[in-house]
């Protein structure tokens, strides 16, 4: 690629901050669940930190994202406050959806986090709707739809790409190919690269190293600029690797040990950290201070969430029908 966009020093540090936040939040989530303080289905995004961090620094609060149940990395990178996140996953009234959405449905329009869904592949048609709205209003917003490699084999993927291409919708389809569709390896269900399918619908499709912040940033920035300029959608296949089993508690015996060890040895978070220090972009002190601040914020968020109230039974029907919206 020529004229590749490169993140400036401040942006590189911000990408790292988001990655470190996602990693720390994941580690704390697993710890809090293991300590029995919180009961919830949890889908770890560990290993996939770079993708949303390098994409979201190219977005504004007004831009939209749609993500799935393995989505805390997407949500945090887009600016979801930790307290709101923790209160929601703990099912408390102080959460983003008043505790009625839970970890599978975190939604926070203030930062453009329009939907988190538990249905594989369902972000894409929803993203098209949001993008169509933007196109009709001419508000200049773009929508990013995140989904996994398994979702690239369902009908909604093909229908959404087709419609988005025909209508030149301002949407970016981001397939986070972590090599696993739940418990099934990607190569057991697909013969081709996800990115190659873009050609069938007449849109650019690119496979990128989703664990490389520079590559990810460059490709995302180009796709976002294209969407904003009214030139239509792009399909990005970001290659990464899921460090843990599908859901927390999954013993992941089906995952190849050597491949997993290799991926973990190439952990993108400490790798980028070292790179920032080596290139003189950041000092050890700056990053250590940043990480300590993140831990403190997580401490506060967890305690805030667990001290908040559960919604009462009277909340059951509220916010379901228009006349009962609070």
């Amino acid at each position: 690629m020529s004229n590749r966009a490169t993140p400036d020093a401040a942006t590189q540090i911000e990408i790292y901050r988001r990655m470190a936040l996602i990693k720390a939040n994941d580690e704390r989530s697993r710890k809090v669940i293991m300590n029995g303080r919180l009961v919830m289905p949890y889908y770890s995004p560990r290993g996939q930190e770079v993708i949303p961090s390098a994409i979201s620094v190219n977005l504004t609060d007004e831009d939209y994202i749609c993500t799935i149940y393995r989505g805390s990395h997407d949500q945090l990178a887009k600016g979801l406050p930790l307290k709101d996140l923790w209160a929601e996953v703990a099912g408390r009234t102080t959460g983003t959806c008043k505790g009625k959405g839970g970890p599978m449905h975190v939604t926070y329009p203030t930062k453009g986090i329009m939907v988190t869904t538990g249905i594989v592949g369902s972000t894409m048609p929803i993203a098209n709707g949001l993008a169509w709205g933007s196109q009709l209003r001419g508000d200049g917003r773009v929508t990013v739809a995140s989904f996994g490699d398994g979702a690239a084999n369902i009908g909604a993927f093909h229908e959404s790409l087709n419609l988005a291409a025909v209508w030149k919708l301002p949407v970016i389809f981001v397939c986070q190919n972590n090599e696993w569709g739940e418990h099934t390896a990607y190569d057991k269900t697909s013969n081709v690269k996800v990115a190659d399918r873009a050609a069938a619908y007449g849109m650019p499709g690119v496979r990128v190293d989703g664990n490389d912040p520079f590559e990810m940033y460059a490709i995302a920035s180009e796709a976002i600029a294209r969407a904003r300029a009214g030139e239509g959608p792009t399909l990005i296949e970001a290659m990464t690797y899921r460090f843990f089993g599908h859901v927390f508690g999954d013993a992941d015996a089906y995952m190849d040990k050597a491949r997993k060890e290799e991926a973990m040895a190439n952990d993108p978070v400490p790798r980028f950290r070292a790179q920032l220090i080596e290139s003189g972009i950041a000092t050890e002190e700056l990053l250590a201070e940043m990480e300590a601040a993140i831990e403190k914020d997580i401490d506060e968020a967890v305690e805030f969430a667990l001290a908040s109230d559960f919604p009462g039974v009277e909340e059951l029907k509220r916010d379901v029908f228009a006349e009962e919206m609070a």
Partner: protein
Amino acid sequence: MAVEVLLPKIGFSMNEGTLAEWLVEDGGQAVEGQPLYALESEKSTQEVESPASGTLKIIAQIGETYEVGTLLATIE
């Protein structure tokens, strides 16, 4: 303040677990992050780390099955 040792939910369909073994004895010193007890659930047994450091006061009995969220011990 005492820290509660609660039975975690470590699997999508897990509702209860059996306390297989205490890895620290009653009145012994538990160390945060170190194995505290073995939990059997959904056909597998795994060691669970201690949530805190301090003196362990055991409540739950070996071989008994408890619901998710049960208070198994406290650490002071």
